[in-house]
């Protein structure tokens, strides 16, 4: 048992390091779940409204894909919790993956683990400590969620079934991240591998609901932990026994992680390393080229995901339209999207959501500048004939171009895959994707502002995104005052073509973007470099 020595100490160290991050995540998660639930409960006061909403969701492949089926159209919880049920496990899993990688491969990559492992700390201790920490976080999440949702007025036992299914999904992906952390040498690659597995799980769950019947999902739902979470059918019969699947997977994955940890050397991954180029490509001669080169993996991954997503959305839209040809559907669509053209309504609805994800990508690209600075890699760059303005500008250009290209990818892929006769034109779809760009850039520019002004608090950029998400998802349902809703840049995006194009808000958003970028640049080019 020497291999586990030091687990307790490492666990305390991890708790100390995460004492701010973890509670903030839990609070954000709680706000999302409980806020969303309270809002949705208020939305469906009577039986009739529930049946209508459930019918709409269950008839729309896009909704089935995103959130899953409403298994019991009569149960308030099943209808009201459609989003928390659909995404609760996924959010928990993202949190879990990030925590585990942060305390395993990141530590190893930075060389800090070498210091620790040289003390009386066993080879299994880091993974075990990370998984224990995540287990605790997930338990906390489950308790807080169950109590919160019960307080929002839903049955307690179902609330617990749902909360536990989310926490266990999270823990399953924690164990998976424990495995990927052994496979790759870089923390980023470990995160990407685990998140790809999560995306695949989500796709299995989504397609199984689209392909399934009102009674059961297609069989491949059972091949995915996200699918199991759906199959628990919280608030619609609470199939507790499904929860038993999770511990099996968790134990199997955790044992695999421990085995791999025992086999490999410190710093080594198990995936092979190739020899690289002895000289740099002729293209690698500017800060912009370096920025792109450093984020190559991320950019390729993002574009591949957007191509897949847009094709999927297009295909779903094609199948959706026939189902939507009833008066009830049209009125529901008009209420969510402001137009009765099914394809357009669908696209407005989805683009609104995807714009948030594109903003997330923008932040991800922007914050790389801070990562480079904190790691001390900006110093050798600035010691060459590269000015700070150029280094900053290269990152800004990468972020703005990436978000633009992602939105364009979305529109083009959608148009290619959509086969409905009354669907829009490529120009219209491109326009619909483009109107969100100023709002996306405002969020991205917040990250740049923070890099310049508060380099040690750049994580606040995520708060800006989370706030916008919360305002967009929950605000209108809870009838928040328009002053609060106006805080999110996405509130001001014109919903063309359902509403006419409005240039004024777009110009204002662009002006805000420019102001934020300018203020960030002003501080960045004057201040001292700030180490981590």
């Amino acid at each position, binding site marked *: 048992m020497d291999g586990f020595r030091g687990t307790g100490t490492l666990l305390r160290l991890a708790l100390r390091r995460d004492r701010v991050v973890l509670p903030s995540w839990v609070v954000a998660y709680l706000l999302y779940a409980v806020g969303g639930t309270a809002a949705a409960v208020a939305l469906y006061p009577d039986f009739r409204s529930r049946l209508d909403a459930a019918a709409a969701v269950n008839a729309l492949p896009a909704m089935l894909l995103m959130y899953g089926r409403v298994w019991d159209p009569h149960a308030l919880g099943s209808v009201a919790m459609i989003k928390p049920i659909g995404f609760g496990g996924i959010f928990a899993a993202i949190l879990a993956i990030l925590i585990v990688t942060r305390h395993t491969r990141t530590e190893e*990559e930075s060389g800090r683990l070498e210091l620790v492992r040289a003390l009386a700390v066993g080879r299994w201790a880091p993974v075990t400590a990370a998984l224990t920490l995540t287990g605790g976080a997930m338990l906390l999440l489950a308790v807080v969620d169950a109590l919160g949702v019960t307080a929002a007025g839903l049955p307690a036992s179902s609330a617990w079934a749902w909360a536990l299914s989310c926490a266990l999904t999270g823990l399953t992906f924690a164990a998976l991240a424990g495995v990927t952390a052994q496979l790759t*040498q*870089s923390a980023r690659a470990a995160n990407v591998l685990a998140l790809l597995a999560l995306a695949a799980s989500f796709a299995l769950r989504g397609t199984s609901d689209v392909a399934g019947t009102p009674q059961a999902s297609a069989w491949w739902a059972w091949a995915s932990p996200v699918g199991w979470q759906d199959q628990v059918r919280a608030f619609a019969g609470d199939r507790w026994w499904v929860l038993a699947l999770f511990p099996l997977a968790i134990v199997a994955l955790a044992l695999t992680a421990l085995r791999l940890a025992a086999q490999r050397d410190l710093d080594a991954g198990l995936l092979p*390393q190739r*020899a*690289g*180029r*002895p*000289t*740099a*490509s002729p293209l*690698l*001669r*500017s*800060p912009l080229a*370096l920025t792109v*080169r*450093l984020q190559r993996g991320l950019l390729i991954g993002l574009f591949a995901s957007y191509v897949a997503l847009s094709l999927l959305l297009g295909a779903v839209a094609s199948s959706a339209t026939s189902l939507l040809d009833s008066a009830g559907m049209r009125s529901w669509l008009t209420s969510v999207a402001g137009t009765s053209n099914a394809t357009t309504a669908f696209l407005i609805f989805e683009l609104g959501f995807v714009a948030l994800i594109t903003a997330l990508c923008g932040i991800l690209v922007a914050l790389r500048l801070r990562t480079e600075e904190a*790691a*001390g*890699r900006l*110093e*050798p*760059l*600035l*010691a*060459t*004939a*590269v*000015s700070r303005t150029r280094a900053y500008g290269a990152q800004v250009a990468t972020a703005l171009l990436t978000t633009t290209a992602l939105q364009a990818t979305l529109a083009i892929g959608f148009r290619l895959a959509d086969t409905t006769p009354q669907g829009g034109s490529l120009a219209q779809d491109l326009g619909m994707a483009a109107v969100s760009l100023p709002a996306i850039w405002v969020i991205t520019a917040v990250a740049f502002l923070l890099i310049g002004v508060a380099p040690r608090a750049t994580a606040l950029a995520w708060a800006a995104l989370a706030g916008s998400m919360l305002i967009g998802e929950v605000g209108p349902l809870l009838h928040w005052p328009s002053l609060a809703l106006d805080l999110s840049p996405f509130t001001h995006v014109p919903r063309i073509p359902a509403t006419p194009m409005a240039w004024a808000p777009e110009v204002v958003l662009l002006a805000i973007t420019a102001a934020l970028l300018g203020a960030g640049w002003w501080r960045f080019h*004057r*201040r*001292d*470099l700030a180490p981590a």
Partner: protein
Amino acid sequence: MAPVIEVHGLVKAFGSTTALDGLELTVDAGEVHGFLGPNGAGKTTTLRCLLGLLTPDAGTVRVLGLDARRDAVAVHRRMASVPGDVALWPTLTGGEVIDLLGRLRGGIASKRRDALIARFELDPTKRTRTYSKGNRQKVALIAALASDAELLLLDEPTSGLDPLMERTFRDVVREWQQDGRSVLLSSHILSEAEALCDRLSIIRAGRIVETGTLASMRHLTRTSVRAQLRRPASGLEAIAGVHDCVSDDTTVTCSVEQHALDSFLAALHPFGILGLETQPPTLEELFLSHYQGA
């Protein structure tokens, strides 16, 4: 010729710690200037100010006749540097990093680059993540030494290098100097400073406490003298500049300041000198006297 580095009254504080406290430093064209001082004295901070990476709180920093902060880019085209903590992009290979840094400075001579890679025995195809400490250091060194800059800033450049590579490093720096170019070398390795440097500056707690050639600094310290006499001597301590005399019958050992050597020997003469050993102060003693309190 005009000095390549001129620093006057440089002050830099980080919060409540004053890292540099009125630093004065001049490096002449064509010289290798050693920059020595205890840990935390402010060497790295000074070099970062010279690179324009930090904004001084007070004082002027001129490099190659330009303002280090305002004209940073113009300065960097003519100045190469090796940082104290070498952080490299983990997914790039050593060869890619050398090329990238060279090009961003304004061009790299591939013949010189390849020659240096061969001399330092670096494998340029490995990703920097997988390099050993010494090999990471070599990447930074080659990137700087391959340039055609006029001035080289080196912050503890040989940390992690094995003795063989250290010798290669000294050879390359001497060649650099033979081309008429200048070097500011921060180091903890006294033999390295002694072998390479024309002049030295010693920094302590953010101030330069001594500048000059090694020979001129030696004058400031005492020579230890051990004399074998015919008769036991007395009264030596009374001579100004003579300290720590220990007599053991006919053998005396004293430490003597330079200006007192003449009168000390004259005082010994009456007792009959049979043997005499003198030891110049070692470098260690020289620096310890500067590093400690004093």
